[in-house]
């Protein structure tokens, strides 16, 4: 059995815990519960020749009072960068966070999740913003933990990316 550490990263109240709850337990609750520190969950996903255990580190959201401790991300094989589509500033924070994370743990696979797509009519993020992100080569998915949109897809895609040989591009460049 292959195991991988996966982190949920993003601003506060973007739906990281709800995405994990939807993915692991298949449930959703409207009640908001702020995460203090870290919550750990796990789920086995079928990808490639053998199943993979994803150990999910649901890290508290970054806000104006506290920054995410980068030590929690050490050893992560991939991460989900979660943005609340109805709050523009969460995308800005996500872009800053991605740079910090990459500086800390290196270029590991990640997926940007534009969450709360069930409220798309009140989104502050425009199609132009999404195009800019895609232009940077980022993998962007619109998701909803509430309506179970793209949750499985996001984790499966991340698992598939993590199962590829690590630093394959770097080794090619070196060759």
């Amino acid at each position, binding site marked *: 059995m292959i195991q991988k*550490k996966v982190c949920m990263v993003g601003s506060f109240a973007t739906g990281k815990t709800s995405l994990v709850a939807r993915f692991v337990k298949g449930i959703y609750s409207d009640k908001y519960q702020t995460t203090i*520190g870290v919550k750990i969950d796990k789920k086995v996903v079928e990808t490639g020749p053998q199943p993979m255990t994803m150990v999910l*580190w649901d890290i508290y959201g970054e806000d104006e009072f506290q920054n995410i*401790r980068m030590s929690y991300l050490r050893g992560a094989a991939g991460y989900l960068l979660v943005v609340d589509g109805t709050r523009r500033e969460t995308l800005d924070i996500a872009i800053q966070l991605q740079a910090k994370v990459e500086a800390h743990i290196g270029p590991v696979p990640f997926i940007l999740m534009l969450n709360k797509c069930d409220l798309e009519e009140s989104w502050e993020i425009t199609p132009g913003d999404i195009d800019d992100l895609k232009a940077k080569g980022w993998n962007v998915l619109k998701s909803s933990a509430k309506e179970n949109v793209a949750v499985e897809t996001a984790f499966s895609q991340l698992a598939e990316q993590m199962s590829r040989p*690590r630093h394959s591009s770097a080794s090619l460049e070196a060759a």
Partner: protein
Amino acid sequence: MDNSQTGRIPTSAAPSAEATASQPSSQAEMSELRRLLFGDKLEALQPTATVKAEAVSKVLAEAIAQSHSQYQRQLTQAAVPTVETAIQASVETNINVLSEALFPIIGPATRKSVAAAIRNLTQSLNQGLEHSLSPQSFKWRWEARRTGRSFAEVVLLRTLVYQVEQVLLIHKETGLLLQQVVSDQTQSQDPDLVSAMLTAIQDFVQDSFNVQSGGSLDTLEVGEMNIWIEAGPQAVLACVIRGNAPEELRTQLKTTLEQIHRAYATPLKDFEGDQAALTSSKTYLQDCLKAQFKTQDNGKKQRPTKLLIALTCITLVLGTWLGLGLQANHRWANYIAQLEQEPGLVVIQQQRRGGKFYLLGLQDPLAQSPGELLAQTQLKPETIHMQWEPYLSLDPAFTLQRWQARLEPPEGVTLWLDPDQVLHISGTAPEEWINLSQRLLYRGEGLKAWNMAGLTFQAPSPSQPRQTPQLQPPSSPTP
């Protein structure tokens, strides 16, 4: 031969594709050069397959040793299929070769395993026996029922000084579980989640308290649970302990962690989430699964005294009950024997049922009262139910008694019954009485015959007494 062509050396570094294309031509040029230098002797100098094998055999052992130190993982992986096939072939060809080779290992290994299993079983049984009848046991039984654990498990939990319930080997960088072992009869938490959470707590403590480099959280205490953590360069060893463990356990953890780092340096360094390379590290972790119980304090084995007392009491009660029962049976049997010897009493049926005695019998009116006989025994009258039906006994004593009552012999007349049931009447009696007696004796109940030879008439005058005739009763007297 065109010398200029053979001696041509590329003047500039060609691009890589070009260099690849020029390789065959370079080899041809080298062959040509060899031919020019050695001429006809070249063939003899060419290494044959035999020479090649000989040359390789000289360096093979050295090459393997060098490869083992530098490319241990690759060498092991390359050798696995060959070794597996070789073992399979050996088994198929002659199973005895491998059996004999493994025999010295299998014997001790099996003995060790069986001894360990028996030791565990004995310990569980001893604990269970020791505490199964104590007042606490009822509390523990309730706890076992409430918590869904087995009674033995609760007993072990409540009597131990400490027990290492779970040992986790965690990858330091990722917090992923490498291996774990769990002691028998304990309920462990999901090791993947525990590993990650312990790592998160370590990270939190180190970040929050500006711990100096190298320092780390080494103990967590929650109620009666302790978690001891030993961190190494690549891996962390965490022990979930119930109770108070001695400091020697800490030394054991350090030693185990060092051994694992030595034995699995490469798999730990190259770990990318695959536990398979570290499966065999479980044997090291087993060394940390230690426990100590109260009953074995100071190496002194306590005897299950409470159990012995309880068993003695039960034996005494049972013995007394059985003894009393047997005694009553014995007295009853004696009483029945006495009744059976008593004239005029006949026991038809008797039995013991539900602690009481029942009897059905026949009783002659002249026989001794069974109640009086019973009073002479130590049997409790309330446990005895008797039913006596009346009858007439032909016992000689009763027959004589009855004839004396019927004939009412006058003074001077004696009646006696011989063993042949012949009634003898002797003495002197008035003629009227003799006549009446002869009439009464005519039916002769209980007699085979009667004899009045010794009886004389009482003469009204002093004349010579007359001899009475000897009379015979009917041929078959009615009893």
